[in-house]
Every structure is written in structure tokens, then in C-alpha cells.
């Protein structure tokens, strides 16, 4: 499937999403912006639709923009080798989004990492606990931009 066909197909599945070419990331990358509330249904279709077959979630992360958070999902298909980036904008004070760990199992670990580092609440996650941070860590999320650690200096 060419990039143009892929874009049309994606627009068919989710008419409300904005789709743009992410040329600077590299040829053949498409960025899709979705609303957090639509993400789960969209993810299921990305995985199940035979013409798309996005079966490999190879990167899952979050960006703190100081005003809001953005979840970033990098997906590709091991059959067609096409790549997309899905982004969902989250509220910074109460970030929450549906988990996709039952669609791509790798999300379970990655979401736990984002949960502790950014404080994003993954709804219906099977096992949302701290993974890297020590026990009893509460409140502050280290990867947020306003986090300062007076003891272990990690910012120059």
C-alpha cells in the first residue's frame, strides 16, 4: 500500500482524526492525531484491519509540553512495513487514556514506565504499578518538566 492509499484508509476508519505527513521523521511516516477517547477503538482497528495490520508497537512514550501531555505511539506492520505515529493529547492535571496492553502486549511494560515517569493513568491496565522507581514513591513524576531533584542532580 502506498502512503496515499494508507492515508485514505486511515481517514476512512477515523474521520475525526487529523492526518499529516511526517516528512522530517523519514519517508513513509504518517502522523495521526486522535482524541484520547477514540484511541482504543482506533487501536483495535489498526490491529485488526487486514489491509493495515499494525501488529508491532515498537515505541510508546509521552512528552510533557508544560501545558499538556502528548502520548506517542509508534506502530508498524511486520507484513507491509509501513509506519505510523499516533498522538493523543492529554490533560496535564488529570491525564488518563485507555490501555492498549491487551492489543499489543509490549504496552504493558511501556505503559507502566510512562505511568510512573509522567503520571499518566492507563485505564483498565491489568497491573499498573511502579516498575523502575523505588517503593513508596508518591506524587512527583520524574520525567515531567517541572520535576527537580535536589539530591540526585540530573539537570545541568
Amino acid at each position: 500500500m502506498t502512503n496515499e492509499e494508507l492515508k485514505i484508509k486511515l481517514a476512512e476508519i477515523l474521520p475525526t482524526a487529523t492526518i499529516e505527513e511526517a516528512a522530517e521523521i523519514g519517508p513513509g511516516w504518517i502522523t495521526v492525531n486522535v482524541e484520547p477517547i477514540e484511541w482504543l477503538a482506533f487501536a483495535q482497528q489498526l490491529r485488526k484491519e487486514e489491509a493495515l495490520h499494525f501488529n508491532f508497537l515498537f515505541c510508546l512514550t509521552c512528552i510533557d509540553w508544560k501545558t499538556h501531555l502528548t502520548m506517542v505511539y509508534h506502530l508498524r506492520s511486520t507484513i507491509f512495513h509501513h509506519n505510523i505515529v499516533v498522538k493523543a493529547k492529554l490533560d496535564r492535571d488529570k491525564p488518563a487514556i485507555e490501555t492498549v496492553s491487551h492489543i499489543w502486549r509490549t504496552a504493558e511494560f511501556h505503559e507502566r514506565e510512562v505511568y510512573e515517569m509522567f503520571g499518566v493513568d492507563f485505564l483498565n491496565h491489568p497491573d499498573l504499578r511502579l516498575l523502575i522507581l523505588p517503593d513508596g514513591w508518591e506524587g512527583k513524576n520524574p520525567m515531567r518538566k517541572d520535576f527537580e531533584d535536589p539530591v540526585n542532580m540530573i539537570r545541568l
Partner: protein
Amino acid sequence: MEGFGEVLKMYRKTEIINDSKAPPAEGFGEADMIINVGPQHPATHGVLHLVITLNGETIKNVEPHLGYIHRSIEKMCESLSYRQFIYVTSRMDYLSAHINNHACALCVEQGLQVEIPPRAQVIRVLMDELTRIASHELWLGAMAMDLGAFTPFFHAFRERESINDIMEETCGARLTMNYMVPGGVMHDLHPSFQQRVKDFMQLYKSKVHEYDEMLTGNIIFQNRMKNVGVLSAEDAISYGCTGPTARGSGVSCDVRKLYPYEIYNTLEFDEVLETGGDSFSRYMVRVREMQQSIRIIEQLIDNIPEGDFQTKTKAVLKLPKGEFYSRVETARGELGVYIVSEGATTPYRIKFRSPGFSNLSVLNHIAKGSKLGDLVAMMGTLDLVIPDIDR
């Protein structure tokens, strides 16, 4: 025997049960017990802590606890310039430091849109492949030692040491090379590089049959590896496994073939695939991959083009506003570097998609239902490097 029962009860309820990280209480039967492996266990090769729920000798659940060596490299990189942050990444997967540096350099070059000279490209590929061999050699020795075979360790380290000597001559370091920089490589090759690599290849070729004699054909080794930790192709993809771990299950995922970078598309080499999905297949993938790396080095060592080893770049690098993603094939799988730039001299956000993190997440899945002794074989063939997982 009542006293013994009391003692047993005490051991079963180690304090870890009240830990917030402890495995869920459901499914924890009367006859089950919890064993902690690590964080200072020799078989974990680093500070990995596994909390294992056992029923007799059968594994019910494996819960990895991370963070013992977490340095928050991603956060540190946010205050380091595009020239500086590469040095930190050598400390992620310290066994393939060259390839980590390579991924970062590629990502910055993509943002700057600079082409690097052909000589630098060839040097980079040569270094990558030497690193891959060195990393697989260490894995081979360490994994065999975990399984109780001590001799292969010395054989593997003999080869690895000669690679490290080559690296030391050219890069000035044995592990954290910091040799690949945006625009090319740090400095030119040492004059004796070519000859020493040739000597190494001769040594390797005259000794490679020893691995087969010691391990591959060894019936004890085979019995411990075959049908242990079976991972299906679907699960490998779903869990995000890459590298030899996924290729052992027949998933074609070699970044050098799928998304070629530098000059890999002009080179002749095979993507090594095995379809067994068990520990033995993963072992075979790595052993055969070393030979493919030798094949690549053979094609290049006499054909290093003359010219610059670095293209001219500005002293202070500024990436344009936007997002950049680059990926390379490290010895452990696909390393992705995702840079979000705001147009400043430092990255706004950087994410390392490390292969070890995803490969580790599959451990519980493949270990369930097998015996505790086999866990060592599984961990060994997943080739976990803890600083790469913790970052």
C-alpha cells in the same frame, strides 16, 4: 515436624509479600513460595531483581523489578547538547556502545540533513560489526557459564579481547567508545587497524569450529536448551521482541535489511532466521550472526575508501523544530532514538526505545510452567543487559 512447618511458613511469607511491588495475591496457593533472584545474583549479569513465585520447582510467575541502575539518561539528555548526549548513551548498552552512538549520530544527522563521507560510513559499519561480534562473544561465554560450562568463557574472551584491543587502538577506549559523532567519526583509523582486523578474522576462522564442538553439538547443552522457553512468532511480535530473540522465533526484523542505513543495502549478508523459538534457536541465531558479521567485515576491510572521516559541521548544533526517529540494529535488537526538538541546542525530549526493555517483558510469558533451573537458560538467551533496560 511441627517446628519445621513453622519455619517453612516463615520463609513462605517473606516480607516481600507486603511490598507494593509484590505479585498479586490471587493465585498464590498454600504450597507456593516466593524466591528472590538478584539483584546481586551472578546469573542476572547486572542488578536485575526477579521475584519468582514457585510451586515446588515449577515457575508460576516471574516478576522483574527494575531501577537498581536507573540513571535517568533520558532526562539527563534534555540538558545536554547534541554533541554531548552521545557520550551518555555509551553507558546504556555498554556491550554495543558503538551502535548506540551510531543511532544517536544518525538521528542528529537526519535533523541536520547532512551527508557523511563514504569513508566514515564504511568505518561505522566496520565498527558496528566488530562490536556485534564482541557482544555476542561475551554473551556466548557468559551464557555457557550460567549453564555450568566454564571453558567456553575463556574461548569466547580470547576473541573478544582481540576486538577490544583493536577498539582501544582506534577509539582510545575498550567499552565506552564515544567514537561516532554527528558528521562522521571522531578521528581517523589507527594505521594498523586493517592488519589487526585481518589477523583477528584469521584467528576467528581458525577457532570458530571450537564453539560447535564445545556447545552446539554437546548433548548436555542441547538437552538444556531445546524446547526451553518456547516463544511463538505471534507472541514475539506482540511483546515487541526484536533482534536475535525474535529472529529465533522466525520473525524477520533485522533493521539492517528492512530499513537499511549507511551502506548496508550494498552489502551481501543474510538475515539469520531460526524457526524453533526455543532457547537453542536463539543460541543458533547469535552464533550464525557472528559469521555474517565476519562476512560483512571481509567485504569492507580491503575497500575502505580514502577521503574525509568527518564532514564539517557547526561547533554548536541546532536541530530544526520537529521530531526525528532513527533506528539501528544493535547486538540485542532494534534501538530507536526519538528526538523531539524545539529548535534549541538541546533536545526537548528524547526517548530511547531500548531492545532489552521489550525483550525482558517476555520473560514471564516464556518462563511460566517451566522449571526454575531452566530460567537461567531463558535469561541467558534473551541476552539481557541491565543498563540498557533501566537506562
